[in-house]
């Protein structure tokens, strides 16, 4: 097994064996969708109009919830330090961890979206657009989260500071994510927003491993 695959397999094993983490995330995501109709009242038209925003807020908050465990456990038990001498560069290690993290935190949310669709009275077109916009946008959410997690990995209360750091970075994802779903944004607008989302994700995934690896090296001094 190559070093990269070995790391990917290890991350997936660790995440799936501690399956409570994944379930907590899904529960949190679905709960936001479930309580919203109770909070704003049973107005179906209003719910359908708010649905894209609610789904993206829930996805953003869920990704914040999971972000802290990306590097912290490995930092605390010395794995991250030992990985510095691996046959793989820190950048490649960060990329492998990012991919595994996306597979175990964002993909479950996308799979749980049908539940949200029922609670928020979405029609089929909106539902499919939601799935596509989440699939396109969550890699960027995960990537920006990784920068926050890497910068704050050695701080004991890093879980408090990291969200503040990555919130400004995540706002464009929310804006384009919601406008990619919105039906009444104008002709061609949702396609443009989808392309922007995909573009942000590609750029973030390309650059973040370098930024996060640098942050990890500096914070371990």
């Amino acid at each position, binding site marked *: 097994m190559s070093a990269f695959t070995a790391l990917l397999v290890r991350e997936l094993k660790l995440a799936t064996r501690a399956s409570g983490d994944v379930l907590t995330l899904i529960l949190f995501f679905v709960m936001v969708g479930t309580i919203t109709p109770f909070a704003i009242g049973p107005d179906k038209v209003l719910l359908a109009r708010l649905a894209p925003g609610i789904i993206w807020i829930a996805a953003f908050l869920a990704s914040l919830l999971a972000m802290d465990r990306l590097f912290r456990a490995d930092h605390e038990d010395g794995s991250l330090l030992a990985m*510095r001498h*691996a046959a793989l560069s820190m950048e490649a290690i960060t990329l492998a961890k990012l991919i595994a993290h996306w597979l175990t935190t964002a993909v479950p949310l996308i799979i749980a979206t049908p539940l949200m669709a029922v609670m928020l009275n979405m029609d089929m077109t909106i539902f499919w657009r939601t799935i596509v916009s989440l699939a396109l946008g969550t890699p960027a959410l995960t990537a920006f989260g990784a920068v926050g997690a890497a910068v704050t990995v050695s701080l004991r209360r890093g879980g408090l500071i990291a969200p503040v750091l990555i919130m400004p970075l995540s706002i464009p994802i929310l804006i384009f994510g919601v406008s990619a779903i919105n039906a009444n944004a104008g002709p061609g607008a949702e396609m443009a927003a989808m392309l922007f989302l995909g573009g942000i994700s590609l750029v973030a995934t390309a650059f973040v491993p370098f930024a996060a690896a640098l942050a990890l090296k500096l914070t371990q001094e």
Partner: protein
Amino acid sequence: MNHARTHAPRHLEVSRLTCLRGEREIFADLTFQAEPGTALLLRGANGAGKTSLLLCLAGFLHIHEGTIAWQGRDPEQRPGEDMHFVGHQSAVKPGLSVNENLDFWACLNGGSTKNTMSALEAAGIGHAAHLDAALLSAGQTRRLALARLLVVPRPIWLLDEPTAALDAAGDKWIAGLIDDHLDQGGLVIAATHLDLALKPGDRLNTLTLGGDK
């Protein structure tokens, strides 16, 4: 454990090394050398800077002043790929079984998994290979961390208190490991309080840190 290949020689030359952590000076003006086939034991009171020196040598800490020169390194290789660092923390993951832990490190360090079982046997935890690593005792966890040294041969070993939490048999095992490594031309730098019972010969040097403080 006998590795077929002898290690490429690595010389270490440290001159006038000063280490700061935060604002505090840990040690200053440290000059020493280490030759392949010898072990350098770092001694000193708690807080004298043994761990900091090892972290400097491993390339984890910013060097404030002075130089650390490794000779004999392959310029094609990334620095660090010729050394093993085993610190206080075991880097052992609960949730993975004992052999999954070691297989992972073997692959990540560029080796193969064919040596892992024999390394676990040598470490005395072969019988626990399929148990969750969370079930290991402190000493067994330590043995698993040290088994990383065996699965992927590398010339430089940086060990921080390798005998911590180990029983008498464990101490002997470590001494044997280091002996074998030196026989193969490896270089060992270890921070330890215990006297390692190495084979007689002129290959054990001691560096005492923080003597005058």
